[in-house]
């Protein structure tokens, strides 16, 4: 089984995002990281490979982005991915990115494609499902567990109030969420050294439109300062919640 893990490059969550006058993200001082969901996704792929060496042949990461994304791709290699593919293009929108990644899948016939359910920049939750439709592969979303039993894949999907255990034929797109791995794997010194000689294959994008665009960004309205209530006057809080906020 060949696994492809799709990763996106995002600002670290604690970044105070700012925008330039021409409606682009102000990148000064930003720490770039692997999208947290993709990091968990990659971790699980590597755990599966470590636990099932005969079954999983390789774990490849794929990314659509400019050359400035390469440090993040190297991090993925340092964590343990075997190879990496970068589609040399800007991420115009999810549809465009999904079309590129679908071509990457087709070029190398991956069996299991793993995508994080959301990216912390655009919070779109769309790339994985779009890829699957381009490929006409089955997809399962809200995947909180992937296991291999007797050489076969077993998928756990979160549903309202519980979970389902599923079997789905390969090739498959698994769109993964929290629970897929306990903690993101950290790159060890050896991994970092080895990553330097692992290849990042460069691929040119195929022609595809973007269906959406961001016209402008806005900062959230400035929050009112917190109104403090005396710790020995809880009745005051209850009164406010009931009669002013009307939430209880």
């Amino acid at each position, binding site marked *: 089984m060949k696994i492809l893990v799709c990763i996106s490059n995002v600002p670290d*969550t*604690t*970044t*105070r*995002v700012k925008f330039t006058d021409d409606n682009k993200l102000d990148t000064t001082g930003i720490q770039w990281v692997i999208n*947290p969901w993709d990091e*968990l996704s990659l971790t699980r792929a590597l755990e599966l490979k470590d636990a099932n060496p005969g079954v999983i042949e390789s774990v490849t990461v794929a990314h659509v982005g400019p050359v400035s994304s390469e440090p993040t791709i190297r991090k993925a290699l340092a964590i343990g991915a075997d190879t990496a593919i970068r589609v040399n293009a800007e991420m115009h*929108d*999810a*549809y465009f990115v999904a079309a590129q990644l679908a071509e990457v899948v087709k070029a190398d016939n991956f069996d299991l494609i793993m995508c994080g359910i959301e990216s*912390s*920049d655009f*919070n*779109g*939750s*769309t790339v994985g*499902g*779009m890829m*699957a*439709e381009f490929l006409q*592969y*089955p*997809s399962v979303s809200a995947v909180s567990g992937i296991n291999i039993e007797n050489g076969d894949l*077993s998928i756990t999907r*979160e*549903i*309202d*109030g*519980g979970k*389902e*255990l*599923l*079997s789905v*034929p390969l090739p498959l797109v698994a*769109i993964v969420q*929290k*629970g897929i791995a306990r903690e993101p794997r950290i790159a060890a010194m050896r991994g970092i050294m080895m990553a330097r000689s692992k290849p990042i294959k460069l691929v040119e994008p195929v022609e595809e439109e*973007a269906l*959406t*665009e*961001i*016209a402008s*960004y*806005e*900062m*959230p309205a400035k929050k*009112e300062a*917190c109104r*403090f209530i*005396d*710790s020995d006057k*809880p*009745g005051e*809080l*209850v009164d406010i*919640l*009931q009669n002013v*906020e009307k*939430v*209880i």
Partner: protein
Amino acid sequence: MSVLVYTENWDGKFKKLSYELVSYASAIAGMLNTTVSVLSIGDVDAAELESLGRYGASRILSVKNENLKSLDSQAYAAVIGDIAIKTDASVIILSNNNTGKAVAPRLSVKLKAGVGAGVSGLPSSLDPFTVYKRVYSGNAYANVVINTGIKILTLAQNSFEIVETGNKAEVEDFPYDLNQDLVKTLVRDVQKQTGKLLLTDAEIVVSGGRGMKSADNWAPLVELADLLGGATACSRPVSDEGWRPHEEHTGQTGKIIAPDLYIAVGISGATQHIAGVSASKCIVAINNDKDAPVFDVAKYGIVGDAMKVLPGLIEAVKNAKKD
């Protein structure tokens, strides 16, 4: 041209979020001078289907098929896509819940329709079709233009008020010829807790963090949640420690919720946690540390020891209930 809503059902019943979707669709249909069709897939009875009319639906299409009992994203996208074409839908609305997240992207590629994912309000403009959504985990908002003839919008839960229009709508049993080869998801086992209020459905949430110090201290939080008719939640360290079940973890990589009231007890307010709750209508924080970052996002706060504040708060709620 019409607006199509897809709503799922839960054991044959709709939920508040279903009515939010129809109300939202109805408002958009008003802007476009058109009507709302609702598609339901599953075993839902006539009375339940008719209830959708009250929120502005003029056509209610019910597809019942044994092979669609559980979600297969590819098959569902095919059904919804076909119905969208049959109803000449120019806008398709789904929830931004797990089902919507699974199906909307597939529908997007099938129909070559741009997606506004996780929108929380009506389009600010019809031409260009522009929607407003949170980005950077709630640290900013984006005005997204959808440039395609058909637009798909997934609506964030609890972000649109239900409006009853008093319509009556015809329920049409829609026979659908499903290509069974599309259904590839086989469910081998289901584990479900019935009867418990889902965190994502709760309008009031009482949540505990590491400041609660131990799993043994949770009783007052549970009591407060029960008194208020809400659900309990927790921060990531709490679920990692095993003090509370994983399902209760709210935060960036846990559940993202938007209740009317979120009470954060002993939670410092780390960015990743706030990303999961920032869309809540009213945030109340109880924390020993007056400088805790949670007070930057809370509307109301009490500085104090949770174990001393909670009993007083519980009493105050009980008293308020008596009146």
